[in-house]
């Protein structure tokens, strides 16, 4: 392109770009999710099987060690039953220089609907600088809980499979000494896609079937869970 043409090119605002991206539906803002768990004793078998099934065969699984903080901000103005807005901040403990991740997660849909193979929830993933915790806190968000998550990540096409141990933050102890909250690893199979790509859910279901009976990946409706005392 000639520099003169370029000089005449109008700049469009970021909001214009965003709304046109929204209109053409290219923003991956839907998360398709299946969850399950595997006992510590069987995790090696699962990792072995995933290594065989997934794309990153040659390099082996990617490990991660993250710290996740969950924030909420109460929306008092909206009608009678205020629905809190939930935000999550995640940072890599093993790569301190990486951007932090700020994430909005909407209400899960499709938990009770038998015809939908996975949970679908809206999700906005944003990379940010490390000031994000300060930023949210000063905005008026409060931190509800936090945890350490450590584990392995696999990829299969657009699907992401994580096998992770959840640790409670140590009270009065250095962050290295943390206690696991269960004798199992959390297993999650997820895809982030623009809305309306429901075909991927079928792929996920059939992938999940390949992991049976080692791990039962399913739609877990955490609102209807029988609650053990936490």
């Amino acid at each position, binding site marked *: 392109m000639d520099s003169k043409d370029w000089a005449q090119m109008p700049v469009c605002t970021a909001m214009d770009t965003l709304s046109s991206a929204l209109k053409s539906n290219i923003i991956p803002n839907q998360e398709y999710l299946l969850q399950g768990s595997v006992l510590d004793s069987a995790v090696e078998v699962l990792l072995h099987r995933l290594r065989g099934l997934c794309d990153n065969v040659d390099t082996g699984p990617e490990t991660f060690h993250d710290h996740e903080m969950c924030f909420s901000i109460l929306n008092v103005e909206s009608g009678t039953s205020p629905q809190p807005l939930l935000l999550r901040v995640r940072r890599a403990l093993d790569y301190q220089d990486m951007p932090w991740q*700020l994430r909005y997660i909407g209400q899960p849909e499709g938990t009770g609907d038998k015809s939908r193979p996975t949970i679908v929830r809206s999700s906005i993933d944003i990379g940010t600088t490390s000031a994000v915790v300060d930023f949210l806190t000063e905005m008026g968000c409060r931190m509800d809980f936090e945890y350490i998550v450590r584990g392995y990540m696999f990829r299969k096409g657009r699907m992401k499979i994580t096998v992770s141990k959840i640790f409670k933050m140590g009270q009065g102890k250095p962050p290295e000494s943390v206690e696991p909250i269960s004798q199992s690893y959390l297993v999650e199979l997820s895809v982030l896609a623009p809305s309306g790509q429901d075909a991927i859910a079928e792929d996920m279901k059939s992938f999940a079937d390949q992991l049976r009976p080692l791990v039962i990946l399913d739609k877990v409706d955490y609102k209807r869970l029988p609650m053990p005392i936490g």
Partner: protein
Amino acid sequence: MGVTILHQFPMLENRTGPQTIEFLTKRIVALGAVQMGQFLVDCDSYISMPSLGPQRTVHVLHNSEQPASVFSILETNTKTIPLVADGLFDLLMLKMTPIYTKKVAKIESKGPRFELADFCIKLGSVTISQNFKGVLVEVEYRPCVVPSNCVGLMREFLQGFLGSCVQSLPACLQNKMDEVYQPMDTIQQYLDHFLNFRKMAGYSG
């Protein structure tokens, strides 16, 4: 990305905004500058609902020079927190709208962008909802990232085509003269000027 100084060019009674921009363009083109596109810096401000306690403001700015980033500056009574994020941060602010609402009009600086050897010059007309408010001249000296090493040179350059109106350095640069200059520092300068324009126009926030 180099050190950047943003300067407000005083308006003369008998000159309109476009005329001022044209006047400055002629001057820098005479110096040998070549136009390389347009630029745009815009700012939306979101104000917290009263139920959230003391009023806080989130200023969300975009700079066409860093098109993939969203710059936010949170202002509370006591502190200012800058945050750089991905483009989708705008989407998140839309989700926040019941809690943080856009009560003031968008303000932006927009105009031609020039290059002259190591300098990048942007002549911006500032508008609040399409109403012209003034002219901001941005000069970036690209080979250097530490302000103390180049502000003298930059001031001289600015004075060279803006005249004697160039005196002091931007406030937010003065206390970080020896730090590495960040894109956020440019944004902070724009925000300072934008807030001034808004104050003059009688907006609060």
